């Protein structure tokens, strides 16, 4: 790719109470790609996404969008560049799901694009299959429904950068696939997506690139086939992992091996 990156991180470092949470991270993101951030608990995935979103200040290093650092952008303009879905979506007070999706339009208030507000909100709701939830009060929705509404809000923001922090954690299979498909579709229009995922098979299916973080630094980065290798994953996750390549380009399936189950079974049989 010869194009200029949409987003760039150089030497991003951050330590919290003496612990290196982010350790010298260089990262480029180009228009039209989906990048999955994966890694064990505490690897720094969410913190890195928060740093990209401008939520946490780095100790050193820079993050820039379109060549300007996050500090150089106005809060208002950043809202027109990147949308963020955080791990859990909470809303104080009983705003309806429709209100919440509509809030995604607020960065465009005062521009000529407000004319599209209604149609964009409608499209976003249809896209994330939240139309039926529209009149429900947000705090009364289930976890998975909240995530879908939050995702619809992100879509309604119509930004070229989309950051999703475990958007599928509370979702059933249908909606996991739906949300990641929709995110992927946005890249067709020129968006770039960074998504934190725990499910490596999902990451393999939907990401163009996978960045594997461990202890605050990038352990491996590349296409799913390059990164999702049993020895790499087993080492980073400290658990034996198998990677199965489904026939007929069915994709990669990553699954943990469970030798201890057989041991327990054997033990139980012995005791009986």
């Amino acid at each position, binding site marked *: 790719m010869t194009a200029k990156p949409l987003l760039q991180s150089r030497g991003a470092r951050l330590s919290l109470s003496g612990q290196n949470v982010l350790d010298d991270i260089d990262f480029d993101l180009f228009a039209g790609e989906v990048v999955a951030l994966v890694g064990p608990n505490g690897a720094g995935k969410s913190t890195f996404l928060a740093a990209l979103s401008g939520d946490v200040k780095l100790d050193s290093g820079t993050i820039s969008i379109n060549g300007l650092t996050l500090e150089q952008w106005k809060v208002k303009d950043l809202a027109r560049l990147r949308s963020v879905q955080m791990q859990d979506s909470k809303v*104080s007070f009983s705003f309806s799901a429709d209100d919440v999706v509509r*809030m995604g339009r607020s960065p465009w208030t005062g521009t000529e694009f407000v004319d599209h507000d209604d149609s964009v909100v409608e499209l976003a709701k249809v896209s994330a*299959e939240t139309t039926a939830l529209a009149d429900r009060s947000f705090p009364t929705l289930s976890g998975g429904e909240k995530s879908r509404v939050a995702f619809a809000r992100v879509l309604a923001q119509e930004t070229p950068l989309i950051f999703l922090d475990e958007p599928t954690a509370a979702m059933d299979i249908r909606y996991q696939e739906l949300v990641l498909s929709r995110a992927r579709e946005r890249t067709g229009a020129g968006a770039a997506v960074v998504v934190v995922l725990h499910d490596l098979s999902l990451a393999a299916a939907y990401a163009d690139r996978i960045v594997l973080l461990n202890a605050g630094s990038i352990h491996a980065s590349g296409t799913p086939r390059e990164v999702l290798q049993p020895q790499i994953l087993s080492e980073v996750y400290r658990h034996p992992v198998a990677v199965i390549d489904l026939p007929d380009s069915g994709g990669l399936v990553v699954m943990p091996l469970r030798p201890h189950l057989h041991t327990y079974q054997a033990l139980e049989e012995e005791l009986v």
Partner: protein
Amino acid sequence: MTPAKLLPLSLNTTARSENAVPEAPSTRSTGPARRRTTSGLLIAALGLAVIVMALASAGIGQMQLSPSEVLASVLHRFGLPWGALPEHPYAESALWAVRFPRVVMAIVVGAALACSGVLMQGVFGNPLAEPGVVGVSSGAAAFACVVIVFGLNFFGTWTVAFAAFLGGLVATALVYATARSGGRTEVVTLVLTGVAINAVGGAVIALMTFLGDNSSREEIIFWQLGSLNGTRWDNVFVAGPVTIIGIALAFFLTHKLDLLALGERPARHLGVDVERLRIQVIIIVAILTGVAVAFAGIIGFVGLVVPHILRMAMGPGHKALLPASALGGALLLLAADTSARTLVPNADLPIGMLTALVGGPFFFWLIRRTRKHDGGWS
């Protein structure tokens, strides 16, 4: 380098998908419009109720006047000689020197308190935040007491109001700094901070009561209980404009407060400068609470009860909630003040006591409800 104009990445181009299962179309897609109508009607009804209540309230007392007589008196004053003036020879002076300033002050103070409740709840993201509960009122009262006892007079008629504003500002900032962590306010920390601030404020007031001479002591006690007795026009001319300015400024923040309901980070992701917003809100809350406390003493729970009931009736959107709460607060305080001066013949009950009598149990119910909804104390 100036960045090129930022454009939305249209959703239209990618929203079509073959694997989308068509959903049942929403049968009630007119949600926002319908709610706007409800809000409009409710606000109009509240406005009308405030006017009727004000006319009725001005007529009630030792000298009974009918609302139509009161209305005629008001119209005549504004050069519209319609209706029959009250027959009682002292009616005009009783109305214009005693009752009207008090009625207008009830409207002003009620609106100020209810709006500061809305703003605090918005910025804390918590329906239990209220100037009285979290100690802003007693902070304002403590500073005002100091001014009264030491006879300070650096701003003329504005001195007590200014001191109350400062006290309110310090208390609000203190609550904010203590009760928030990680961008959210836990109910228990909020209420405990209120307990601490109320304790310190109460101690200062007690000390001032101890130090003060008899007249200032009486003034403090009278005013600690909250009362609109003895309101004069010059008080109204200070409190009125300040409240109007405060509420008008708050209007510019309503949309941002809606976004803040998503949490601080998500609000920032949507372009809200959260730091600036909270400073603005804290200052406006201090202005509104300060002015209310300075002229009416500590009147609790108005900022808690009114916004909560209205939120249930018309939804949490601040753009409608703020004006509706201003009117609702005015109505509630008018009713409370009318009761305060008529329930017991020849006595003027403290209005703070009345609102606490109603608001206390309401607060209790609200705590239980919040606990059930949030599934615990966080």
